[in-house]
């Protein structure tokens, strides 16, 4: 298993502002994954964060809107920039352990007014 600390657990933000979500893992991992889960929906991969290189973004997600940092092998941040109400979602970081199993952080519930 993996211990993943994610914060903040929830936030209410004003339109046009930015929020940075932090994810700390209990041991080194090569890749960290950022997912978005819109209300009542499934999980959609935003990007894969690799240490020492730029994140790889999925179709529909761009670096200007969701900049990611990966300063070392146990930590990553995701910023949701210039927020609008459509960005209201749960954001989850995750890592792979034991092959392809994914372990998730507790998530960040974001509400944009």
């Amino acid at each position, binding site marked *: 298993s993996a211990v993943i600390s994610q914060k903040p657990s929830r936030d209410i933000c004003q339109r046009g502002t930015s929020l940075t979500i932090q994810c700390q893992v209990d041991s080194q991992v090569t890749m960290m994954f950022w997912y978005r889960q819109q209300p009542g929906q499934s999980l959609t991969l935003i990007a894969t964060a690799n240490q020492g290189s730029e994140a790889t973004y999925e179709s529909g997600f761009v670096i200007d809107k969701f900049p990611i940092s990966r300063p070392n092998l146990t930590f990553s941040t995701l910023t949701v920039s210039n927020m609008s109400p459509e960005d209201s979602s749960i954001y989850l970081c995750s890592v792979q352990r034991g092959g392809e199993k*994914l372990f998730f952080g*507790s*998530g960040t519930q974001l509400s944009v007014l």
Partner: protein
Amino acid sequence: GQQVMQIPQYQHVQEGEDFTTYCNSSTTLSNIQWYKQRPGGHPVFLIQLVKSGEVKKQKRLTFQFGEAKKNSSLHITATQTTDVGTYFCAATGTDKLIFGTGTRLQVFP
């Protein structure tokens, strides 16, 4: 791109009844994983199936991978209120997991 659909979208059952969710892919899968997400929680890994026709059991949960490796099912026998949540299948795409649409299970006591 690859899509993974689940049916039903919602299921309400009386405690003690059985429950099944089905996962279908448009392409052949190398493996399939199942996750459970409790209300207000994050997804938790349940199991991975790799072989064609594979069947695995975890107490009251039975997981099956189709012979053609394009579909999978999760069956819960005699549901309990602790089974409440959303069940997702997830298939390995190119270097990433693609999550199914999910089935939300509600169990009434």
